[in-house]
């Protein structure tokens, strides 16, 4: 999507609207996402959320984003995604419907957005009602001194679900730091290759192809050959790093050769 097209000159806002929008921008960190921002903007329409003008709301939101950019305020990606979507919705709402276009109508999309806002608003109100209820330990109370007569004392062990999940997380996290144990067959390790090369290099005279060091029974099966080759290559690099061998290769993909570093 081409961003400059999405953010045309802001719609003409009245002074109070502009002030309100600026107040919002100052506050941008206080918003919990684009829906929250839309809900706040929708209050300026002072109508039932069911009769809200989504077109007007889209313009307000886009105006907000434009101003935020003018003030060089970094907006999080989800705000910009919503802006792009609203710009699209706005153009769909303004243009006459294209009979060839498939998919939902602009009105359906607008109605869905209005419904999402209404739902969020409803949950906010439900949350407020819930928190304002009479609450245990604040407005009504349980027995302050539950009776535990002391003669018969049995120990009951208990644990919470959180304990259980944390225990499992602890074990699995520990696992992440344990070296992964290969129990697969047909894997030749670098340690094996190092041992093998160290043992054989003493007998090797001048330059010798790396592949010649592979054990015979690791040369046939492709999977085994690959593993042994990789291990020997890594081992050769390791030995070169330690300064005990020299490596040479005449050309790209030419056979790699090595010899004991002359003293």
């Amino acid at each position, binding site marked *: 999507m081409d961003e400059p097209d999405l953010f045309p000159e802001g719609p003409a806002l009245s002074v109070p609207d502009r002030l309100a929008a600026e107040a919002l921008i100052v506050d941008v960190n206080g918003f919990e996402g684009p829906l929250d921002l839309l809900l706040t903007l929708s209050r300026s329409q002072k109508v039932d959320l069911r009769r809200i003008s989504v077109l007007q709301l889209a313009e307000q939101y886009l105006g907000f984003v434009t101003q935020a950019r003018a003030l060089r305020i970094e907006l999080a990606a989800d705000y910009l995604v919503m802006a792009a979507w609203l710009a699209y919705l706005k153009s769909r709402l303004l243009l006459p419907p294209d009979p060839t276009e498939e998919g939902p109508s602009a009105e359906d999309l607008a109605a869905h957005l209005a*419904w999402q806002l209404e739902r*969020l608003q409803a949950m906010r109100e*439900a949350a407020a009602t819930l928190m304002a209820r009479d609450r245990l330990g604040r407005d009504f109370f349980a027995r302050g001194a539950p009776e535990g007569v002391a003669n018969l004392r049995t120990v009951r062990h208990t644990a919470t679900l*959180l304990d259980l999940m944390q225990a499992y997380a602890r074990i699995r996290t520990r696992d992440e730091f344990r070296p992964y144990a290969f129990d697969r067959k047909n894997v030749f390790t670098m340690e094996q290759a190092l041992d093998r090369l160290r043992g054989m290099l003493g007998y090797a005279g001048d330059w010798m192809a790396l592949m010649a060091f592979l054990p015979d029974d690791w040369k046939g099966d492709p999977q085994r050959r690959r593993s042994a080759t990789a291990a020997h290559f890594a081992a050769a690099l390791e030995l070169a790093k330690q300064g005990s061998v020299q490596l040479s290769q005449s050309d790209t993909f030419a056979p790699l050769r090595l010899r004991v570093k002359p003293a």
Partner: protein
Amino acid sequence: MTDQNAPSLFAAPPMAEQERMVEAILFAAFEPVTVADLSRRLPVGCDAAEALAHLRRRYEGRGVHVVKVGDAWAFRTAPDLGHLMRNEQVEVRKLSRAAIETLAIIAYHQPVTRAEIEEIRGVAVSRGTIDQLLELEWVRLGRRRMSPGRPVTFVVTEQFLDHFGLESARDLPGLRELRAAGLLDSRAMPGAPAGPDDDEPTVTPQSDLFQD
């Protein structure tokens, strides 16, 4: 009254006595006690439910009430007397706005997945928000959703009901109205492709609550 000196093996105590017993058990406990639990603790042949009904009537209008919490029962002080109990008030940890909204969404939409909570709030559920609700034991894990990825769901607990003085999740304030207004439905964005977000249940979640 049965003859105390020669009680028959299975004669249940008279109802007044059963009521006393239930009264004592509920008084002694802090946590709500289920009828099943009461039955286990009362002598053989007792009718815990009936004794409870008598007890409930006896305490109507008193300073303490018998309240229902999910499937369980407890004595709780009358809410209008809360002002006398300043000494006993416990500081409830202040919940963030995100946590409060998440709690309400779980209560009203349960069982609900994290993705659904995020869709309703229009923002990611930050780390620790659900953790905090789990720790308060107001929220627990429900059944996994039978949809791709089989996401875990969250539901509210009996402690939640107890804390907010609700008999059951059906008694959440305004639940019926919200349901009638379609605000508890799960509606996908029109024309939304059947993408990874398409793990909506075929029935609306909250309707599960009303099936029994």
